[in-house]
């Protein structure tokens, strides 16, 4: 049963993507996609909760010789335990949100839009579930390809004037610059015994490498994940890619795809390279704290809500990375830092997805509010503003909402290394929150005015959207007040791994 659920969680998106590639009734595209999204949410929730509830998680394997004609041993294995269940859950929950809120505008999109979206979901599900390194890499690139087609087909010149194709090229180059070293690392690991050790076997497998080789393998992985997350300095693709991408795509980019990088940090670097991580931890933590502050500072200089959200992503994900690096630096807080990071992975996704879709719902045509051109939108969009404000406070880790426990654990883990890391990262979060609140104030409060004729405020949220936003907020509230629901199984899973001697 659990095996079937795992397989469904992986293959359902692929099936839906193929379904949308076949010719069909264009008018029902949005509705069908939403339907599948809910089905997928149910599947992901079932699988995720099953994994959270069971000791040691669930797995599905297809035999040692997945590649029949080769001497190369590779086990096609999927696994889901307390650590990665949150990743699958967030993917399942984000899809219905995206397709519900952007449904009206999606009418103008063709089949390619939905096929790309579901291909992306397929790639993401694969990355989050696959144990085999080669499969992991395959899904990693599949997600990239899906985004490439999605933006290439439906992207628009950004408000900053960034063109679609140069931006897309830059995105692909950045990502390849990260994923090719990662491929080399995977190849180096697989070459040891001519066998794919899988994520679970990776900590053992890298022990067979010489120190120097292991160092290079580590760096290869690190670069790949640093670009995807992105870490400070590797984020050159971020702002303009969000700018040109269709609204649904950018919501998934921030909420779900950035979590591929987080997944790599948590599942590859932390368990398999404890020594390397520990040596580099001060530098990596500095990089992460700097990223949080840099994102927050840059948010002060943005005129556009969309850019603010892009840099907010950078800032928040840097805090997440800070937790992983702190866990590596100090074995005493290993479980705390990693559990905090997983909590942030899940909650950040659920908050950012709403922020991005609501941002696209403020103006007609999916435009994002621009500073100084609009004010007093609240008169017309009361509910929209209420949820935007709530989401901003949630993203700023208001206690009682879901981001808070994870951030506390990460801040505490970093604090035990040095209070400076927490102070700098916290300062970044503070500035970022202030910039977001100020931007919302400028667009929504004050006397109603629109100072450019092409900016048309959209209608307020409808009944269904309000209900969904309420449901999401309820999840934030419940996980904010009872974080142990998620934290309990997550940290149990990490404690299990930790007691086996991995992670320092």
């Amino acid at each position, binding site marked *: 049963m659990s095996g079937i659920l795992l397989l469904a969680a992986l293959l359902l998106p692929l099936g839906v993507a193929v379904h949308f590639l076949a010719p069909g009734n264009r008018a029902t595209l949005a509705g069908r996609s939403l339907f599948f999204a809910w089905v997928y949410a149910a599947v992901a929730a079932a699988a995720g909760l099953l994994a959270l509830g069971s000791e040691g998680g669930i797995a599905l394997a297809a035999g040692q010789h997945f590649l029949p004609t080769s001497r190369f041993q590779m086990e096609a294995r999927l696994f889901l335990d307390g650590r990665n269940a949150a990743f699958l859950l967030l993917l399942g929950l984000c899809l219905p949100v995206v397709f519900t809120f952007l449904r009206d505008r999606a009418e103008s999109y063709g089949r390619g839009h939905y096929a790309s979206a579901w291909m992306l979901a397929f790639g993401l599900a694969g990355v989050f579930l696959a144990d085999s390194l080669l499969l992991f890499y395959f899904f990693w690139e599949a997600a990239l390809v899906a985004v490439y087609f999605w933006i290439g087909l439906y992207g628009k010149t950004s408000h900053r004037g960034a063109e679609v194709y140069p931006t897309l090229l830059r995105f692909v180059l950045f990502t390849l610059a990260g994923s090719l070293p990662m491929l080399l690392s995977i190849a180096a690991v697989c070459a040891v015994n001519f066998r794919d050790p899988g994520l679970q076997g990776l900590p053992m497998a890298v022990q067979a490498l010489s120190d120097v080789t292991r160092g290079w393998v580590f760096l290869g992985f690190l670069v790949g994940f640093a670009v995807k997350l992105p870490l400070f300095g590797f984020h050159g693709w971020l702002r303009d890619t969000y700018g040109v991408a269709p609204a649904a795509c950018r919501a998934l980019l921030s909420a779900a795809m950035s979590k591929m990088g987080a997944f790599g940090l948590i599942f590859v670097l932390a368990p398999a390279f404890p020594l390397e991580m520990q040596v580099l931890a001060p530098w990596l933590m500095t990089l992460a704290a700097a990223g949080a502050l840099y994102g927050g500072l840059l948010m002060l200089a943005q005129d556009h809500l969309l850019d603010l959200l892009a840099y907010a992503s950078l800032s928040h994900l840097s805090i997440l990375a800070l937790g992983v690096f702190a866990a590596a630096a100090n074995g005493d807080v290993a479980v705390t830092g990693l*559990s905090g990071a997983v909590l942030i992975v899940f909650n950040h996704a659920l908050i950012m997805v709403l922020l991005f879709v609501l941002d696209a719902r403020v103006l007609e045509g999916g435009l994002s509010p621009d500073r100084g051109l609009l004010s007093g939108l609240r008169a017309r969009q009361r509910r929209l503003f209420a949820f935007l404000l709530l989401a901003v406070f949630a993203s700023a880790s208001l206690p009682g909402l879901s981001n808070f426990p994870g951030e*506390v654990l990460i801040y505490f883990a970093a604090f*035990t290394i040095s209070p400076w890391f927490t102070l700098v990262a916290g300062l970044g979060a503070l500035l970022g929150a202030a910039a977001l609140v100020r931007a919302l104030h400028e667009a929504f409060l004050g006397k109603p005015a629109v100072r450019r004729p092409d900016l048309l405020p959209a209608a307020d949220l409808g009944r269904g959207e309000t209900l969904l936003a309420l449901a999401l907020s309820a999840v934030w509230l419940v996980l904010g007040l009872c974080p142990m629901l998620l934290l309990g199984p997550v940290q149990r899973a990490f404690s299990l791994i930790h007691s086996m001697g991995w992670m320092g």
Partner: protein
Amino acid sequence: MRPLLLLALPALPALSALILALFGGRFSYNAVGTLATAAAGAAFALALGFAATGLLGTDAYLALDLGPWMATDAFQAAFKLRLDSLGMCMVLLVTFFGFLITAYSVGYMRHDREQSRFFASLNLFVASMLTLVLADNLVLIFLGWEGVGLCSYLLIGHYWDEKGVPLAAFRAFFVNRIGDLLFILGVFAVFVAFGTVSLSELSALGGTQIPGREWWAAFAALLLLGGAFAKSAQAPLHVWLADAMAGPTPVSALIHAATMVTAGIYLVARLDWLYAAVPQARFLIGICALVTLVVGAFMALTQHDIKKILAYSTLSNLALMFLALAAGSSQAALLHLFGHAFFKALLFLSAGSVIFSAHHEQDARRLGGSLKALPVTRIAFWVGCVGGAGLIPFLSAGFFTKEAVLESIRLSALDGFGIHVSGAALYWIVLAVESLSALYLFRLLGYLSAKPAAHDLHPVHDHGAHDAHGHHGAPKETSPLIRAVLILLALAAPLFALFSGTPKLLAWVTGGHGHAEHLHWGHVLPFLILNLVLAAATFWIFSGNARRTAVTGALSKLRFGNRGPLTHKFYFDALYDRIIVLPLKVIAWTLALVFETLFIGVISLTGLLGRGLSASARRLQTGRAHHYALGILLGAVVLSAFLVFHFLRNRSF
């Protein structure tokens, strides 16, 4: 009472807030007001029930442990509520004023808009404050701590489409957030130092565990102090409080009397054992409080906006409480917290009644004579002013509590960083500045009692969109609810004053451990008389239009109050603009222009590099056969040379 009922204290108003936020728009105004008042009233009734169990004045406590809130192997914070004697006093205070102010608001907000949002925030405010005072650990306190911050932000921004209001809300949010960051860092420092964040465990081991951890303890004390300063509006983090007057008046009463600003005092008082071990922190408290005391009192003297006068007076009173904390007397600080709550609530609610009946006019100069037409408000205002200035023992809510503070200051001294300020010197400074409270309160009362000038009753100005009620003309007390609450409070304040003269209150806030200082009437009487004379003279001057014009004219000739620090809020705003806001903006824009271009350009650089390499490589491909032939020849030579070399070296291939 069952401990589980402790949960109901914050849960009742929180639930009401949730219902109002979700469905309030569909309810009638009366239903909204009734629900909100009933929730706050139920919490008050529950608090009375708990008080009847004999917690007050003893060591007994009730605890409710709901398991871990967040817990890993390295960090634990429990969801645990604890009600002891001090907590009981705070709960009574919060629910009593929360209930009265909510009821008052039902009258005050009747003609307003978005009432359900207002009442939802009001209820949530009370719920957050209750969480704060019931929480047994610092992380849970932080839940309430940020909760009151959020609610104050929402309520200050209530008139969201008016000029200046969003900015005021933003400033409250931002300054409080700075404090919150320091607070949470302080919580971590406490955990690192002591291995727990539970208040009861901390105070149990606090005194004994400090040796060897002085550094962490000092660090924690200073960081938590940052949080307390922001919440309780002490310099240099006091700038948000006066702006916060942009909200509806009942909100100001709630923020200033019972919730929010008292949180910082409460926190430092709870952690008294920690601050006792860190004299530097106490010194810092003393200095900052002294600055705030002066800023508050002098600013209150020069303002004309009724609410701003009262807001600055709050600053000054909070500074008094912090001075008591600096003097090591948390009991005096807590006593004055309660005394202040009574007269400040009365003052703000009376001011609200004046403002309400004058169609939201707040300038005291244009409200001449408004008290004449408002008999109940007039009595309440007088009781509040007499209480605030501490003029009549056993009748002024602030008299004994203020004396307790002054006495604690006199008996102590500020020591730290090699500086010594004797208690006597401090006492005289504080006494001098404090006597200004008689001046600014009776100046205000004088303005409101003066004969109206002909143009004052019908001020020609824009009432603003929220002034939808149509009863223009002479001010009248129209709302029975407002009158009822004012009467109740005007009776409660003297009762409290009587009560505060007995040792009972002290026993309540200290759980029976406090020891009262004897009041030296010989010390007090001269100043009491001086204050009475000051108050009477001020009132006499300001209640007569001709006298007032003469005096203010003479003062303005001195250019006192027209130029200089008083008109610029002691330059704090300008300073922050220059040393924080401007540099941040410059840094942000520099990063955006320089660094971002760099990071984005990295990949373009690699493109350029690739293009450059291929450009040079392309030159080799000339397309001429003899060039290629030459290349082949060169290659052959190099290869043969290598082979020959290899053979010569190894004597074999």
